[in-house]
């Protein structure tokens, strides 16, 4: 069988991170190939290189045995590569047919030949068994159908190799089944499909072969029939825990944070948090593990007060805070290290001092009446910079001059300066170097030892496991498992993170036993 795609030695670097480190990746013609890994493993980057959106620093690509140079997106399309991204690139008010033919409309003189548009769309729709109504407006369609439109867009441009990035992330279970039917018929029609996912159950159900990536490198490629979820999960998350953080036994106090059946919508107005309940006690770190995109952002924003809850209640130290403003919640002892460091956590053009004092400027000792106490503010800023070892030339330089690690130190300095009862840390070490990571995690532990209740939301499994006293896993907006930090295993958590509950594992074991 010929190789539809062969990528050799691909190296792609972004400032501060090697996204793809000498990656070899090969796909056979007519197969369904799954590309699997955690967030940041480098899967999407690799496919973006193939699709011409990124240009690799090193490496070669061969399509059907011929070496090619893919310098821009148009090159990839011309070579028959099509990609459907996680966020669809559709024009909402246009019809299905208009979206599919956009940029390559059949013409009749200076006008668009609307009949030809409709006919050609119906034709490929029929050929590949992807049912769509050409006249329907895209924004009225459910996400599953929109995805079909995106696939048809690629097919209209005569793609032979289809790359699908997290295709089932936005689908309901029924839509997922339909989607699998689509993939099978595409392959039956002679196409090759590469799909990126973190959902191991689906990998086993639909793919012929699977490649696992981790930290920018390929861990291995297997025939799907020769492997199982356990092995894949191990390949996906197994890494040496580099961090050795000192942790005393937890001394638990009262319940500080209580979340009761919380429901929150995301920006697309879908329910992202589906009835989550949890409790965090003083002196305890509760880790919320899970691949990003399963409702973590919405959960944190709802607790902090940036996003309204559409159902459920939140209590801090027994007091209901659901109707309260952000400032009122902070006043009740809550602090937060936000996921969006550069947008929410900091004002990059403002000075470090401004960033440090933004939560405390309005009350004593930082101000007296309507006036700010500049001396107090200045000295507290300098103290914070020293205590948290922020590498900077001064407190009055704009924040954007700092490195990522130092910026996170500024955020932590500010959020811990109020000696909070409750600290929410969302993806606190994302994008940081080892030294900064250890610093951040140590500070979180110190806070916990000082009696603060900590809610740690992180997609980094080893981080969650090293720090947490208790761990829950968030998958598709629900808590799918709870376990003590001491008893948690990577494998077990990995399975939960991939949507496979304990019952599923038992089922598989039973079936394997009967074979």
């Amino acid at each position: 069988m010929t190789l539809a795609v062969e990528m050799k030695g691909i190296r792609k670097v972004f400032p501060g991170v090697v996204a793809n480190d000498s990656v070899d990746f090969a796909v056979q013609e007519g197969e369904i190939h799954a590309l699997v890994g955690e967030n940041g493993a480098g899967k999407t980057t690799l496919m973006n290189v193939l699709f011409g959106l990124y240009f690799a620093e090193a490496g070669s690509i061969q399509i059907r045995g011929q070496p090619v140079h893919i310098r821009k997106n148009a090159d990839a399309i011309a070579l028959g590569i099509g990609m459907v991204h996680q966020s669809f690139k559709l024009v909402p008010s246009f019809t299905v047919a208009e979206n599919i033919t956009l940029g390559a409309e059949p013409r009749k003189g200076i006008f668009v030949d609307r009949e030809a548009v409709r006919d050609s769309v119906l034709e490929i729709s029929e050929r590949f068994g992807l049912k769509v109504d050409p006249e329907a407006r895209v924004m009225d369609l459910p996400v599953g159908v929109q995805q079909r439109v995106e696939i048809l867009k690629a097919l209209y441009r005569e793609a032979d190799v289809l790359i699908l990035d997290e295709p089932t992330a936005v689908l309901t279970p029924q839509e997922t089944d339909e989607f699998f039917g689509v993939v099978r018929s595409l392959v039956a029609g002679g196409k090759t499909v590469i799909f990126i996912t973190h959902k191991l159950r689906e990998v086993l159900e639909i793919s012929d072969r699977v490649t696992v990536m981790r930290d920018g490198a390929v861990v291995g490629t297997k025939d799907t029939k020769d492997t199982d979820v356990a092995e894949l999960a191990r390949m996906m998350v197994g890494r040496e825990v580099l961090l050795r953080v000192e942790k005393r036994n937890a001394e638990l106090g009262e319940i500080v944070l209580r979340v009761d059946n919380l429901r929150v919508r995301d920006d697309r107005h879908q329910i992202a948090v589906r009835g989550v309940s949890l409790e965090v006690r003083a002196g305890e770190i509760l880790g919320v593990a899970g691949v990003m995109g399963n409702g973590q952002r919405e959960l944190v924003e709802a607790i902090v007060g940036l996003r309204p809850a559409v159902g459920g209640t939140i209590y801090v130290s027994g007091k209901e805070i659901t109707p309260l403003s952000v400032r009122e919640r902070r006043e009740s002892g809550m602090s937060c290290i936000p996921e969006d460091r550069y947008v929410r956590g900091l004002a990059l053009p403002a000075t470090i001092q401004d960033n440090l004092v933004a939560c405390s400027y309005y009350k004593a000792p930082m101000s007296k009446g309507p006036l700010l106490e500049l001396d107090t503010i200045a000295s507290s800023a300098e103290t914070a910079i020293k205590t948290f070892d922020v590498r900077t030339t001064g407190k009055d330089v704009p924040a954007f001059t700092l490195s990522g690690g130092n910026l996170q130190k500024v955020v932590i300095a500010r959020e811990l300066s109020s000696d909070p009862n409750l600290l929410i840390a969302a993806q606190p070490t994302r994008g940081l170097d080892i030294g900064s990571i250890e610093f951040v995690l140590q500070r979180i532990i110190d806070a916990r030892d000082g009696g603060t209740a900590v809610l740690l939301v992180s997609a980094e499994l080893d981080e969650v496991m090293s720090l947490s006293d208790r761990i829950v896993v968030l998958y598709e907006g629900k808590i799918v498992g709870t376990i003590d930090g001491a008893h948690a295993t990577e494998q077990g958590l990995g399975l939960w993170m991939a949507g496979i509950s304990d019952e599923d594992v038992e089922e598989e074991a039973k079936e394997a036993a009967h074979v």
Partner: protein
Amino acid sequence: MDANTMAQIVDILERYVFNVANIQGTLRLATPVVLAGLCALITSRAGILNIAGEGLILFGAWFGVLGSYLYSNAMIGVAFAMVSGFIIAGLFALFSLKFRANIIIMGIAINIFAQAATIFLTRVVAKTAGVFADPRIVGLPPIELPFIKDIPVLGPILSGYTAIVYLSWALVILTTIFLYRTPWGIHLRAVGENPRAAETLGINVSRIRFGAVMASGVFASLAGVYLSLGHLTMFVQQMSAGRGYIGMAVNNFGGGQPIPVFFASMLFGFIYTIGWRLQGERIMPVYFIDMLPYVATLVALTLFSLRRRRALQKARAGNSNEED
């Protein structure tokens, strides 16, 4: 209801609603608003925030008068105006799109600049301050449409306007066809709604944006030359009187579609006409009448926003009922 009140009501209806002169005035005075609306429309559909319409109208008005003055020919005046719109909008596009200047500031700068420049140029050319009038300036003649003018009732309503009025109607239709039936119009709408989608499909987003801005310049300049050669036969300083912004508002009300924008402009044409009527009636001091278009804009924007919020809320409520 007694006979007196009836008579009064009939009288009001006769004078303000079923009145040929009013309808004619509405159509006429709506024309610059229609063109200003198209100016705002074509750029907003391409995803560009264009507030330079006011300045472009003023420049169009001035250069139109200049052309007519130099050659004693109204059509040459219109040509001058359109070229000025093209060029100035081109500069605007260059600075905002290519040089990445803040487009809002550029728009404000163009508007301020237009005010100062037109006064300056008037002083230079006509040696007067604020008004450029001269017997040499030829205005646009009214055009009587051969068969239509004889149709009872509709005849006088449809015939007898200057060329730009008819042109504006044609442009509304042409713009609709352009946006919905031609590939470039479709691409323009795609660029306005989701430029990343358009880009990944090989559409030259930059070129489309440039084209949209320059087209808006031509529309605006037509609005201006209508004011200076069609409505009056002179240039008066600040004669655009906010129509550039009112154009933005009617584009808002018309949802970015040419035909609804046309009808929204009619409303303003009506307000201008009524204003002129009321002035004659001496019901209230003329200044309150002058305020009408601007107050109307505020009121209309308020009502429109309220209605949109309510519709959004209803849609949201509908969605949430389908959740698990």
